[in-house]
Structure formats: structure tokens, C-alpha cells
């Protein structure tokens, strides 16, 4: 059989019933649109996770004070001050594979220089912090372990803080007043941009945690401890050792909940993608249902079309069309319907993704692969649901078909 005229026949049959074709394709349009948006959100979330993992540093374990599974009161991460400086030192000393530990305290406060004020976050850290988070300085030098031991009044600042307070001036060597304590700026961090949650990571002051505890926040406990492991294979073992070490140090009897939480980088990243995964599942369900409903719509319309065109089928058979020729013709028609719907759906899905990222700030990522898969999927729906009507057409008896009124 000649294929080109067959496409032509399919095209004209669909165009003749424009409204009907559009309504029939609607299910496919919605389904494919949802698939595209779903994959876009899924990929965006994955990229977000990767960025998140990277922004945490490399091979990092985080220890927060407070328990997330406490049976009584849910204190939350960093809630109760249970982590001591000595805990961090014990980890540094006793857990094998640890190559860096940073005691972390965080507060938010006003900083000032000259007549400029700025509200920013103060991170107290050890000198290992810059290695753990893989966050080098773009200018100047980091503070040293000696600065930490002596609780020196030194700090490094992020690019945003630097610009807000000093404009185009070089901040290095300048004095920054934090709670009226003068700190000397040693360096400026390389810009990191927005975090996946939309927080400006460059709006920050990092100083020795000893200085932060003594001169800024005034507390005696740590919010969390950042630990870096040298060999990724040792992370799981180190996590277990940290848990038993801390339980022992905190005198937690067997059977009682931890008063701290230990999370690896992957665990944190997974928690962060939970919402987008829910959205993905939801869209996946919409996509699945729409594609099935769309497919059934196509089947229905094709059955109507086969009935309407019974005589045409009879004529085609009389002049020599084989059953397979008729089958192919109606399959092509069904596939044309579903894949044109698929193409429109792809455009809609890309549009929906763009809207989601513009207005809902969802990170979305459309890949050529997902477009190709969505298109093939819509064509497959056409084949699957077009097959029954097409076979029915092909099985018609030419004499009966010619006589059909």
C-alpha cells in the first residue's frame, strides 16, 4: 500500500471533524502536559538535590541538638541545647575516618560599619568549616585554629554582606561592629548564590565559634556539629559510631530516644525533595488517568469513525485494499490524533513548567529526553487504543460494508 496518501486521508478525516478531533485529543493533551510538567518538576528537584548535596560540602555528616523522633515533645533540630563543645572534640578524637569537624552556632543580628547597618546571619564555625563546605575565599584569608582557640575578634564575610556595607570598597582589614564588638574582616567568601530554598547564601558573616559564643550569641551549647569523613565508604560506619559515642557521653540509657539527630548529606537531600516527590506522584497520577481517558476517547471516536465510513471501507476493499491496509489506515488516523495531541500537550507542559518556576518558584528542568518520551508515549496510546477499532474495520466483510446505509 502507498503510505503517503494514507497519511493524507487520515489528515483530512481529522480536519473534517475539527472540533471532534480537538475534544478527543484533549485527554492526551492534558496527559502529556502533565507528564512533561511532572518530569520537569522531578528533574528540577533532582538538580536541586544535587545542588544541595554539593552546597553541604563533601562526605558530610550533620549532628543537630534535639531529637526528631522524641516520643514526648518534638523538640526539632537544634531545639534543645544538648550538644557541647566537648562532644565535638570527642568526635574529632575518637571517630575513625573523620578529617574535619566544625562546631556551629548561628544567630541573626545587626552589623554595622561607619554609618552602614545591615541585618545578617552570624555563623560561628571552626577553621575546618571552609574545607568541609568546600567554600574557598575569593579574597583575603580564612581565620586559623589559633583564632578559634583564642576567640579572636576576626571574621570573613559573604559577597552580599560585603556589598551591602562596603559597596565597591575593599572590606579586607576593615572593622565590622557586631553587637558593638569590633571584628576585623580577614576575607571575603566566593559567592554561592541562592540556596535551593531561595536563601541568599552570600549574606553571611563567618567567625570562630568561640568568638560567636563569647561575644555575639552568648550561649554555651552548639546548634549543630558538621563532620567531614575522608572516605565516602566510611560514612555509614562513622554515623553509627557518632550515635553511640554521643549516647554514651549524654548518658542515654538503652531504649530511650537520642537527644540529638545525626543525618548524612543524602538523608537531608532526600527530606528536602519529599514535597516535590509528592507533586511528582500527583502529576503522574493525573498523567496516567488522562492518558487512559484520552485513549478511551480515541477508541470511542475511532469506532464512530469506522461506523460512519463503513461504505468507504467497503469501496476500498472492493478496489483491492487488504485487511492490513485498512488496519494501517485507521491506526495511522488514531496515531495522528494522539500524537498531534501529544505535541500540543508538550507545548502546554512546557508552558505549565515555566509558570510553576516563575510564579511558584519550583525549580523545573525540561529535557529533550522527556519530550521524546512523552511524544512516543502519546503515539503508543494511539496505537494501543486505535488497534481495536482498526481491527474491527479490517475485519469488515466487503459486501456488507458496500451495502451499509
Amino acid at each position, binding site marked *: 500500500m502507498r503510505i503517503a496518501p494514507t497519511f493524507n486521508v487520515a489528515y483530512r478525516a481529522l480536519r473534517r471533524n475539527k472540533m471532534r478531533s480537538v475534544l478527543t485529543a484533549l485527554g492526551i493533551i492534558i496527559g502529556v502536559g502533565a507528564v512533561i510538567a511532572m518530569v520537569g518538576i522531578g528533574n528540577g528537584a533532582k538538580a536541586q538535590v544535587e545542588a544541595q548535596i554539593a552546597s553541604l560540602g563533601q562526605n558530610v555528616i550533620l549532628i543537630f541538638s534535639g531529637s526528631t523522633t522524641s516520643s514526648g515533645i518534638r523538640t526539632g533540630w537544634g531545639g534543645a541545647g544538648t550538644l557541647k563543645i566537648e562532644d565535638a572534640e570527642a568526635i574529632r578524637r575518637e571517630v575513625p575516618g573523620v578529617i574535619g569537624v566544625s562546631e556551629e552556632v548561628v544567630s541573626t543580628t545587626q552589623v554595622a560599619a561607619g554609618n552602614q547597618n545591615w541585618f545578617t546571619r552570624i555563623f560561628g564555625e571552626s577553621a575546618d568549616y571552609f574545607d568541609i563546605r568546600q567554600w574557598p575565599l575569593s579574597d583575603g584569608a580564612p581565620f586559623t585554629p589559633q583564632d578559634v582557640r583564642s576567640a579572636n575578634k576576626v571574621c570573613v564575610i559573604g559577597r552580599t554582606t560585603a556589598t551591602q556595607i562596603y559597596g565597591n570598597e575593599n572590606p579586607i582589614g576593615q572593622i565590622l561592629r557586631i553587637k558593638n564588638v569590633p571584628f576585623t574582616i580577614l576575607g571575603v567568601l566566593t559567592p554561592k548564590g541562592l540556596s535551593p530554598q531561595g536563601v541568599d547564601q552570600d549574606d553571611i558573616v563567618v567567625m570562630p565559634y568561640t568568638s560567636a559564643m563569647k561575644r555575639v550569641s552568648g550561649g554555651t551549647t552548639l546548634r549543630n556539629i558538621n563532620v567531614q569523613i575522608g572516605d565516602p565508604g566510611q560514612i555509614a560506619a562513622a554515623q553509627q559510631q557518632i550515635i553511640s559515642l554521643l549516647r554514651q557521653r549524654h548518658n542515654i540509657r538503652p531504649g530511650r530516644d537520642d537527644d540529638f539527630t545525626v543525618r548524612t548529606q543524602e538523608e537531608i537531600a532526600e527530606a528536602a525533595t519529599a514535597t516535590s516527590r509528592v507533586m511528582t506522584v500527583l502529576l503522574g497520577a493525573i498523567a496516567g488517568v488522562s492518558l487512559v481517558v484520552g485513549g478511551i476517547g480515541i477508541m470511542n471516536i475511532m469506532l464512530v469513525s469506522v461506523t460512519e465510513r463503513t461504505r468507504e471501507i467497503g469501496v476500498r*476493499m472492493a478496489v*483491492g485494499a487488504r485487511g492490513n491496509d485498512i488496519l494501517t489506515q485507521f491506526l495511522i488516523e488514531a496515531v495522528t490524533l494522539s500524537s498531534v495531541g501529544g505535541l500540543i500537550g508538550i507545548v502546554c507542559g512546557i508552558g505549565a513548567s515555566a509558570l510553576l518556576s516563575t510564579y511558584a518558584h519550583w525549580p523545573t528542568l525540561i529535557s529533550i529526553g522527556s519530550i521524546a518520551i512523552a511524544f512516543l508515549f502519546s503515539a503508543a496510546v494511539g496505537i494501543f487504543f486505535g488497534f481495536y477499532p482498526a481491527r474491527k474495520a479490517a475485519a469488515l466483510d466487503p459486501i456488507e460494508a458496500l451495502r451499509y446505509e
Partner: protein
Amino acid sequence: MKNGSLVKLIDVHKTYRTGEMEVPAVRGVSLEIKRGEFLALMGASGSGKSTLMNILGCLDRPTSGSYFLDNADVSGLDRDQLADIRNRKIGFVFQSFNLLPRTSARENAELPLVYSTQRLSHAQLRERADRVLASVGLAGREDHPPSQLSGGQQQRVAIARALINDPEVLLADEPTGNLDSRTSVEIMAIFQQLNERGITIIMVTHEQDIAAYAQRNVVMRDGVVVDDRVVPQRSDAATQLEQPLPSTL
């Protein structure tokens, strides 16, 4: 059988089975039709003409008996093989024209070539369709859909469609049944002209004066052939068209 016979039916039966009922529509027809004949199949309604035509046209298979077309036994062929035979050897003209709606005369005429094993280019296809349409007097109407053509013109398109693949035999079941008498004569003129060019024509009709355009009349009754005769005084459609029509037509 290498004696120039194009169609040979040997004791052909066709029995329809509707539930418990058996309807014998054709009950033992033996018939030989030579290449180049123009035959009219006649008989009352329900006598089995259409059933026999369906068998002759390879649209249906006999319940028993043999059918040789062009010296090949086609009575045992399957659906696909019959479709190929129809495509290569048979052209159909129907009472109700059976053109594809909203499709140009040219594309209607081309239809058999869509299913042909011949590989023709788009231009060759078009050229051939236009030539056949011109031969039935439709030059200039190639782009018209059936809705813009008169009944006689539609039947000419159907004839062009039947001829485009150079068939061995043209089968026409009541080709003038839906046409007025003047147009019927025009169609008969085309048939006689084609027949003079050597095309074998088998035509069903229950009208005596239409049958008179054929060379041979075969009459059926209750599924059997009851008469088979040469037409003694053949009508000539072309000369009739030149004269004012007699009132009997």
C-alpha cells in the same frame, strides 16, 4: 481451458446461512464468458444476480463449485489473495456509484492504484487518472468532488476508477439503476465503446432495453440460469444519442 475463456463457472452454489435458516441464493450455475464479451445478467429481484456478481467479482467465495478467472482457480483463495485479484483483474461499477465523499474525481479514480503493487510516482498517478477521466468524458472535472457532479458524471468517475488498473473484466451491478434514461444511454455508450476496445463487461440489469445494449443476455430465476442467448437486435447507444430519444427509453 486455453480457449480464450476469461470466466468459467462450474456448478457454483452459494448458500447463505442466517441462524438456523439456509437460503440458497445460487444453486448450480455453470457459465463460460469469453474475453471481449459484453454480457447482461438478468432476472427478477431475488433471483441471485448480485450474489453471482459478488462471486464473479471475488468479493465472495462460492459455497461449492469452481470459479476460474483468467485460467486460474480462484474459488479457494483467502481474503488477501482475493483482494489482490480484485485490484489487478477486476473493475467494479455500482448502482449507487460508491465514490468517496469530499474527495476529488481524480483521487477517486486513483484509489485502486493506492493498493496496487505497481510503484508509480505521484505525477504518474495523476497523469494516469486524468487520462482515464478524459476517456470517459470528464476532462476538466478532475478536481470536482462528487457533490459537485451530476449522477451521470459520478458514474463516469466510478467507471474511470474501475478502468484505471487495466482490469480483465468490468463488473457493473445495475449501473443505470439510479440514473435517468438519457444518462443511462450515455453510460451504455461508454460501455459499448469500451467493449469495442476489447474490455470484457458483465452487467446486471433487470431492464430489457438496457440489456439490449449487450451482446449476450443470461437470465436467472431462483438461483439458476434459465436462458442464455445472443441479443438478436443490439441497440447502439452512440447512434441513439445523435437522434431524439424514442419514447420507450
